């Protein structure tokens, strides 16, 4: 596993200090560059681990759900590397808005199935992957892409992303002589955030998980049970799961990993939310000031930092740049009308 992370995924990922944007915001801003991993996001950390486990369990096929396509691409990549079959379920809405990643998955030899049920986004892709898995469990491993689902997934996926927080902690201490004052990451299911937080949860660092306003499970949900976990969940007065709405397909999930619900409940982490328009502004801001095109998911974290900058003045702020934005460029061309 360590060798794969080093020689295939490209770990450790670097830390980039944003001098221009930091000066503009009046903070010291550090980015953990998970976007520079092979396949372009943090997702590869978890997928390589699960694919190795699947091999060890004697399974030759992987199924996965994907929202933005980053987890699907990572799973298809691991399947290609380890000579396994791969099928990725993706909401039909997301297949349209993430066409580039659909093509990448196909190039990698995976079969991509557009899910037409329910809201036709990430939660429905999870349903369909689970339905496949219960029928094929003897040969198939469900390579779940976030810190959610039934035990042991939330724990296992966190452990595979722990490397993000551990690297970042050592890098911050080397660079700052201390842990950062604030660690910020976007939260859909919450895998990149829990990876980052795991490095600092026992430190004084303030932990901030940023949700989309239209999918704020911690911010606006109540405890519920779906997909094999009990966690904050957007639902109606009868417990029907509601649809999430966000500009980023990767965060369009009405639930959240149970460890985030726990961290919120005990007050160890906070979960503000940001609007699509704040995200669009942050996406452009990072490109213009630092020459980095971020994924729309990760732009949620930056959007909160921009909003909170006055109260963060002079602080060391570490943000997980969980993915790169190539996949979002076509969508942003439409949004920005250019």
């Amino acid at each position, binding site marked *: 596993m360590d060798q794969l992370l080093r020689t295939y995924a490209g770990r450790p990922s670097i830390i980039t200090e944003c001098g221009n944007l930091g000066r503009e915001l009046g903070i010291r801003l550090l980015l953990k560059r998970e976007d520079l991993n092979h396949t372009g996001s943090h997702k590869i950390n978890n997928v390589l681990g699960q694919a190795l486990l699947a091999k060890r369990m004697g399974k030759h096929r992987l199924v996965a759900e994907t929202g933005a396509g980053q987890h699907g691409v990572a799973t298809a990549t691991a399947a290609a590397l380890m000579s396994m079959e791969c099928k990725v379920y993706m909401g039909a809405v997301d297949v349209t808005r993430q066409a580039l990643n659909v093509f990448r998955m196909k190039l990698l030899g995976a079969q991509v199935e557009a899910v037409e049920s*329910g809201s036709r986004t990430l939660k429905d892709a999870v349903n369909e992957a689970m*339905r496949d898995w219960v029928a094929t469990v003897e040969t198939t491993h469900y390579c779940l892409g976030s810190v959610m689902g039934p035990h042991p997934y939330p724990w296992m996926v966190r452990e595979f992303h722990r490397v993000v927080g551990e690297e970042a902690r050592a890098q911050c201490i080397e660079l700052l002589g201390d842990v950062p004052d604030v660690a910020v990451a976007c939260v859909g299911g919450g895998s990149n955030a829990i990876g980052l937080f795991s490095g600092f949860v026992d430190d004084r660092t303030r932990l901030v998980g940023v949700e989309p306003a239209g999918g704020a499970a911690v911010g606006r949900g109540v405890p519920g049970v779906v997909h094999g976990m009990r966690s904050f969940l957007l639902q109606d007065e009868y417990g029907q799961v509601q649809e999430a709405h966000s500009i980023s397909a990767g965060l369009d999930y009405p639930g959240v990993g149970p460890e985030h619900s726990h961290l919120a409940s005990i007050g160890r982490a906070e979960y503000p939310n940001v609007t699509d328009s704040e995200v669009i502004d942050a996406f452009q801001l990072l490109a213009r000031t630092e020459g980095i095109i971020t994924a729309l998911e990760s732009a949620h974290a930056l959007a909160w930092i921009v909003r909170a900058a006055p109260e963060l003045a002079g602080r060391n702020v570490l943000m997980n740049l969980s993915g790169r934005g190539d996949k979002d460029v076509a969508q942003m061309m439409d949004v920005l009308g250019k």
Partner: protein
Amino acid sequence: MTAQAPGAMEVGFRAKRASGRKLLVPYVTGGLTGWQLAVRAAAAAGADAIEIGIPFSDPVMDGPIIQQASQRALEGGATPVSILREVRDLDVSVPLAVMTYYNTVHHAGPERFAAQLVAAGIAAAIVPDLPLEEAAPWCTAADAARVETVMLAAPTAPDDRLPRIAARARGFVYSVGLLGVTGERARLAASATALAARLKAITDVPVLVGVGVSNEAQAYEATRVADGVVMGASVVRRLMEAGPEAVGDYVAQVRAALDAH
């Protein structure tokens, strides 16, 4: 496990089994157009109990037919409250069970949900996404309210798990017929009778096979081993395609096949 006396549905099932009758439990999605008529037609055609689905937004155990039925019912405005209200008007003589997903129970709260079932005259509950290890809050509330909780056993369950499932089961043990979701299949899976036989060997609680029992011939085949069958997608498809009378005709056909034992 508590030494609680069996509930009304289980007592009835045991008596019918002792008389040589094979048990037939059709499933109808609550809130679908014509669903109450379908329940009455099924009861009149020889069902021994009827399972009423309370639709959930994310029915992960269900295949396309029941997914579609659930979505239609929800789009038609069905809620757990509206369905239980309509149950009170059914006036059928066979026991009624509800099938729903755990968030419906969790959201209402186990005690409150159990009380709602009792008030509606429901005898039993089936909650397929509630594993044995997490079942205590619901089962305690259900036992206290005298609602029989049917437990499901999967074909992948190891031998040492089956007695624990059977000990916790009230009404009957739901022997899942295959690895996969609900829906009609061309043939009865070999796993259907294999698991039913494993369960029959370790429990006296009635064992019914459900999931993938798709027509009268497959029902007959399953009940060579099992005490009965649950039939869902084949019933619901007829309700959606042809209406409540077609459900009655179909249940009568299956009844005749089972009575040929």
